[in-house]
């Protein structure tokens, strides 16, 4: 599009203004009413649209706002480049000037971006959220493992954890397989609750160190223990009874984690052994 005052060669020039009479050299015909009508319509549309949006609620829906969590990223271990010891010399051929160069125009920036060398392969911007989520999961997991006394809540922390073990794949018990960290903490807490209440006679333990008894005990969602059932008895009736009394004295275990409630309600296997096999 040629601007007003454009030269016949098409080059834009601001030095020589166009002759005054050239602009209004033609008489207005239908363009003026049409322009007024068009502008009026645009104004009406904008006003009507603004009035209609008042009933549609707040401009920002809080439920749709993306939450951003600050995650402490590990410190970079790479070394910083050496700082220059003095101001670098100006490139040869350039002219020294006291005034800073003018900022690049938008067109220049677009031109540079356009001309910049494209990275090989995927040219989409790298999505850092996945890395951040992985770091967050790792931090949570480490915190869980480091703090065995942390309260066990109802929330399932490991369902989405790639390092967690799904309930259907878990092998619980004597250290076989990978123990779900939340389940491991739960079992540890249960063991700590039962052990002080178990007082078999040391003389029996010393004489028969291989004694062990297995009980099946339903555990309610609130941790309350149901009636213990002797699954596998030892050869010593006193030892078996001490195990049953231990469960009875314990009375209540920590609440089972959400994912394990059904399993706990169906019955938890409790093995009480004279010696520590773990």
């Amino acid at each position, binding site marked *: 599009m040629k601007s007003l005052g454009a030269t016949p060669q098409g080059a834009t020039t601001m030095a020589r203004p166009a002759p005054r009479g050239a602009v209004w050299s033609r008489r207005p015909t239908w363009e003026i009413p049409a322009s007024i009508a068009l502008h009026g319509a645009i104004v009406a549309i904008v006003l009507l649209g603004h009035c209609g949006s008042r009933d549609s609620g707040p401009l920002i829906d809080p439920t749709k706002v993306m939450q951003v969590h600050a995650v402490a990223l590990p410190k970079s271990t790479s070394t910083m480049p050496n700082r220059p010891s003095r101001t670098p010399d100006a490139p040869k051929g350039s002219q020294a000037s006291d005034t800073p160069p003018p900022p690049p125009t938008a067109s220049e920036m677009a031109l540079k971006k356009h001309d910049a060398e494209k990275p090989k392969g995927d040219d989409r911007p790298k999505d850092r959220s996945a890395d951040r989520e992985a770091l967050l999961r790792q931090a949570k997991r480490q915190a869980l493992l480091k703090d065995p006394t942390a309260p066990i809540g109802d929330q399932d922390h490991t369902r989405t954890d790639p390092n967690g073990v799904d*309930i*259907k794949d*878990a*092998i*619980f*018990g*004597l250290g076989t397989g990978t123990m779900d960290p939340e*389940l491991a903490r739960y*079992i540890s807490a*249960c*063991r700590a609750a*039962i*052990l*002080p*209440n*178990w*007082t078999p*006679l*040391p*003389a*029996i*333990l*010393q004489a028969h160190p291989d004694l062990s008894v*297995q009980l099946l005990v339903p*555990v309610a969602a609130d941790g309350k223990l149901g*009636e*213990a*059932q*002797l*699954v*596998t*008895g*030892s050869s*010593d*009736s*006193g*030892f*078996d*009874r001490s195990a*049953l009394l*231990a469960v*009875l*004295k314990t*009375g209540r275990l920590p609440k*089972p984690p959400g994912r394990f409630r059904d*399993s*706990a309600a*169906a*019955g*938890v*296997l*409790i*093995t*009480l*052994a*004279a*010696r*520590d*096999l*773990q």
Partner: protein
Amino acid sequence: MTTTRRHIISGLAASTAALTLPWPARAQEASDAATEVPQEQGRIHIYVGAPGASKLPLALPRPIGGSAQAGEFYSVVHRDLDLSGWFDIIDEAAYIEAGGTGVRPGEFRFEDWDVPGAVALGKSLLRDQGGRIRAEAWVYDVAGRRKLGAKAFTADATALRSLAHKVANEIVFRVTGQNAPFATRFAISGTFSGNKEIYVVDFDGHGLTRITKNGTINLQPAWSPGGNKLAFTSYASGNPDCYVADLAGGRITRLSARNGINSGPCWSPDGTRLALTLAPNGDPDVYVLDSRTGEVMTRLTRSAGIDVSPSFSPDGRQIAFVSDRSGGAQVYVANVDGSDVRRVTFQGTHNTDPSWSPKGDRLAFVSRSSVFDVFTVRLDGTGLLRITQGMRDNEDPCWSPDGNYIACASTRTGSSHIWMSTADGTHQVQLTQGKGGYTNPSWSPVLGW
């Protein structure tokens, strides 16, 4: 009262268990007909192993038999069992069995002891028999509804306390399978007369008996393996010489009176040798002497530094001692002929008074920082275990004959008393009473009195 209430509550719980869980017939049936639950995936499995950290609830009813000394007998047995650290003795107020009920199987109901929550039951009978006393100990497993053992003892009426110690020993042995140190004594250096004299006192702090009366300084007593002699260091003649007291005959003989010190005697396990520190040339070294003649058999150390405080290993083949050859005082171990010297302690700058565990696996010693504290360590220098902390000065550790306890002289209550703890440092109890002045304890072997 709180303890009583707690036991009543736990007892009620236990009795409830007895009602809801028909026992033992049902349990035995279930045990016989037990079917293995498959280890299906999704089943939570809780493993509880290695019990024993908790104290055992023990019911200890008063002795029957009508002896006039039953009260004193009962208090000795009660205190012994309390000191042992094994038991949580249930308060008598929680008992529902009538006093005077029989001690033999069938003469009482186990269910009566479920109520106070007893796991073990120690019944006793004490009867006067014309100047002598007969004591019977009957020990039961309440949960197992069975007798664990029974034993009878007879002694002069004057030996009531030793009789009570034996009954307490029997209860501990039947319930725990371990020997208790109740029938032992301590030899100590006491300041009760104004001087430092050698005394002997029962395990529980009673029966203080004076051995030396020379009005000088008498130190570091050591029991012979047979329990009939004491070796010690005395300044009776002005020089720190080594003496041996025959406890049965009452004679004290000087075994070693060489120039310089003759101190810190320690008996070999077979009683034929004594290790002690001599300094004939001014340089203290450890020597092994014939325990009858006092002649030098071997010289253990030859370093230029100070070598003192020998302690024989239980097999008699090695000796632990203290040396400053590395700068500060540290504990070393060497073969009894002086070969293969190895340093045991590496932490701290002043580690002294080694005492070899009767089990042979650890050494107790004293480490000085701002105060003196007792530690134990394995022979290879690993497994350092602190026994005392924040309890003022704790010195001169010695082991019980079975190696389950460590005693030391402690000023934690102000004056010096004998304190005892389990070998892992738990259950610290004061054994001696009174105004104090007990130092250098040496634990006797189990005595047959």
